[in-house]
């Protein structure tokens, strides 16, 4: 099994991949948040706060559900709304939330992020 890349390298790689992904049709934007900084790129900046609050809540509550139902640490969390969904995952200690249209294949997006 190959050794895991260091968190910093992992984040740099994801940041590069995010630049390509955000231009894809159906991707609304992303929030990449570490303990002391955040990169945000959303098509509709008026939704930054709402999306950030949703992301933070989903990370915490998703982990709580994982613990309660004993499925181990959450690798990915998908929050689906009526037309939009969010893919949440932890990358190199940072929390990544990618917002997209509901019909977009989030598994493919994970592959494009090179995280699977």
């Amino acid at each position, binding site marked *: 099994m190959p050794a895991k890349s260091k968190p910093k390298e992992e984040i740099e790689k994801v940041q590069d991949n995010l630049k390509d992904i955000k231009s894809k049709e159906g991707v609304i934007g992303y929030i990449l948040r570490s303990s002391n900084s955040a990169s945000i790129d959303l098509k509709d900046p008026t939704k930054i706060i709402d999306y950030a609050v949703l992301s933070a809540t989903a990370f915490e509550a998703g982990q709580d559900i994982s613990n309660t139902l004993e*499925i*181990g640490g959450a690798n990915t969390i*998908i929050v689906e709304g009526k037309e939009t969904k*969010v893919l949440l995952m932890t990358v190199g200690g940072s929390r990544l939330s990618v917002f997209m249209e509901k019909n977009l294949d989030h598994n493919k997006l994970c592959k494009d992020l090179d995280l699977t």
Partner: protein
Amino acid sequence: MSKDTYADALKNTLTEIKKICPDVSSSFIFKMDGVIVAGDSETGEETMEKTVNSFQSIAEKAEAIGGLQALLIDGEKGKVHLSRVNDMYLALAASKNADAIYLQSVTRVIVPTVLKLLESITPTPLQFEPSKQLIVDTLSGFFAGDSVQIDVEILTQWSQLLNRKNVDKVELEAFGGKKAECTVKEINDPKLKGKGIIRIPERISKTLEVKKGELVRVKPTGV
């Protein structure tokens, strides 16, 4: 069909699903207001209530994406599907290697079909016990009194659901099993409104053996 028969039918359905697919470790159905309708025979009530509580906290923030329709968690040892079925939600936890197609047929076909079938033979709309789980905040001091305080919205909702003019007494139950019955008033501190809190006088919290920050189940008396 009574609500008990309805819940039993759903419970049996979920238990049978679990028997057929041992990869399913837990399954239950709940309403958006937090009321648990039915769960399989092996999933504890506390597990269901904690899950529903976490789910509700996401749902409260999900308006930005048009309301919460489903939540999927891929964990290290398993996965969780929480999906909307009619006006309810089905929660299903399964092992990592569970057959995805089977899970989809359970969430999208079997359970919705059973619900539809049950509703078609139910003459009146179903009414479930309006219990809520709330976070304890203790009231101390000379003016603490003997009444607990909860959000006025919850009291109004109960009054409407139970077709009563008002709800003035509630039953509290701690996860440890201790129960208490007491009068209820609306929360008078505006900073604490709408936060899913119940303010309990210290004396009652000692009876229930609960501390600040813990959860208790609350329901109007006589239901």
